């Protein structure tokens, strides 16, 4: 029980009468790779938006390491240790790759330096900048993006943009990482590569990862447990291959 990182209780939200998500109960243990699957419009991204404070839940609540995070702002939730990527990539397109990651490092205590230190160029500024650059390079190396660090983010190919987004989220030093369709738009080779990376960062950073994905190969190859959503409700939960073979799930995907 104590190694549960994320617990949601009866999480739900309604948009003007439409129950977008209702009574989602998740329990994700430390270092687990957990999948959230379901047909389009099932409410997967909405769950992410609830967990990151973009939307406030109308029912239920959620806990990270036993601490209730419901009602906190997006910034505060990130500080508490939930980081995410976006379905439609949201990089800072006009910044170089390394700067994107450095924005992620912004709040790390070891790089703290207040605006006036920077404005007056006190020694603390140079120390922080240099340390951040070094750390960002390290993170980029894991994703194989070190060579590209000085290119503008918008000039990267799609697959690398996805990776960069994960790198940037990782830079905020989260306990729980939410990946929204990380393999979308990738070719099989890149997907394979991404699976290795995801496993590697999980091990290296002691991460717990919750991911949304449509590529079932990716999900079954990576996740040990999944939750299947349909029309905002939980269809089934449990061990991956079992859940995917559930007749209800097949019906939801393929129709009657």
């Amino acid at each position, binding site marked *: 029980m104590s190694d549960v990182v994320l617990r949601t209780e009866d999480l739900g939200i309604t948009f003007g009468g439409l129950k977008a998500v209702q009574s989602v109960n998740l329990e994700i243990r430390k270092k687990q790779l957990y999948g959230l699957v379901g047909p389009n419009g099932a409410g997967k991204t909405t769950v992410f938006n609830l967990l990151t404070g973009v939307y406030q839940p109308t029912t239920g609540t959620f806990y990270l390491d036993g601490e209730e995070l419901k009602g906190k702002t997006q910034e505060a939730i990130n500080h508490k240790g939930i*980081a995410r990527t976006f379905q439609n990539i949201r990089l800072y397109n006009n910044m170089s790759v390394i700067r994107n990651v450095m*924005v992620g490092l912004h709040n790390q205590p070891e790089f703290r330096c207040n605006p006036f230190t920077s404005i007056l160029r006190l020694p603390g500024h140079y120390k922080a900048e240099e340390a951040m650059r070094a750390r960002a390079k390290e993170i980029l190396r894991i994703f194989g993006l070190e060579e590209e660090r*000085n290119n*503008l983010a918008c000039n990267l190919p799609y697959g690398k943009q996805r990776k960069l987004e994960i790198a940037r*989220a990782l830079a905020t030093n989260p306990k729980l990482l939410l990946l929204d369709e990380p393999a979308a738009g990738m070719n099989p080779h890149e997907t394979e590569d991404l699976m290795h990376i995801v496993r590697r960062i999980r091990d290296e950073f002691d991460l717990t990862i919750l991911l949304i994905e449509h590529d079932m190969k990716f999900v079954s190859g990576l996740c040990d447990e999944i939750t299947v959503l349909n029309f905002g409700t939980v269809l089934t939960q449990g061990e991956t291959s079992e859940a995917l073979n559930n007749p209800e799930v097949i019906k939801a995907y393929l129709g009657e």
Partner: protein
Amino acid sequence: MVKKLLKSDDFKLKNCINYLAVTVALVVCIFMKSQGKLPNSYANLLVQIGYSIILAVSLNLVVGFLGELSLGHAGFMCVGAYMGTFISIQLSEVIDSKIVCLLISMLCGGLMAAFFGFLVGLPALRLKGDYLAIVTLAFGEIVRNIFKNLPWFGKAMGLTTSAVRFTKKDIPLFIIVFIMVLVTLFLVQNLVRSKHGRAITAIRDNEIAAKAMGINVTFYKLFVFVFAAFFAGVAGVFYGHYTTPVMYTFFSYNYSIEILVMVVLGGMGSINGSIIAATLITVINFKLQDALSGDLAALKYLIYALILIGIVLFNNAPKFRPYKERFAPKALIKKLTEKNRKPSDIMSDEADWNKIPTKIKMDEVLTVDVQDKLSAAQKAAKEEE
């Protein structure tokens, strides 16, 4: 340590060329003044150029780097001009030196403006986009309205500043103004070229992603806004020490727009551009003042209007993108220099500090394409009928 410092971004020629340029200009002007070759009207022009640069650079911080539109920059300048000069006048009874008076009032005027920036920014920055424009506009009008009517500031006659105004006997005001320009550049560029500057551009580029990265959006917006207001206040204090009387009519909405024109002309997010554009527009204004009188004065505003519309359309309209790639100054320079470049330094790490193209939301642009295609398809269908 020193060696490391010299190797850092701050000491790259590209990043301190504007300090050099301003310093050289200042030295040349001082030299000319000492030779008696600088007419008085030109010394006045230099003061105008100086405070225009301060205004444009600080507004660029809000519009270009933070991506919020403020139409009240003249309002903050107004606060600085009235309050700072008022303080200076009071001080002049105690302190003899005009320079000391100016420096103290500069700080006070700047802080006052910053305080007002805080008051206005606090409610406005919690809202999205266009609201800030209208609230700052409203603020500018409120400030003017209040200073016009308060008994201490000369009411409709304006605040008479002859007690502290710099005259021929004093050290030329433009020297102090230009030193302050250097200080402004130093502070603003240091902010922009730091982790905080990165956070600010991140907010502009993608606010949602910035929030998700844990960046305190409200804090940074407010910080930039207050910071810029401070410099607008300082510029106002200079204005108060250069002209008399300080009139509320000067700080109208039109003046805010004039500063905005400087920022847009110079390029949003380009500090060097702001410096050049502020100089250019101030000089043009100065030259046109005599040439255009009466109704023809409207020509000036016509030019402003065309600059604003032309540049924004050229930079942002999807239709013009191919031309932009071919004819924008950046592209032309690139073409000229491309041959002489080693492949290794084409994309240096510092490439995006100074010039950041105005953002375009890709998904929305795509929608427009779909729209065009859809209407084309509809047309084709109609023709078939």
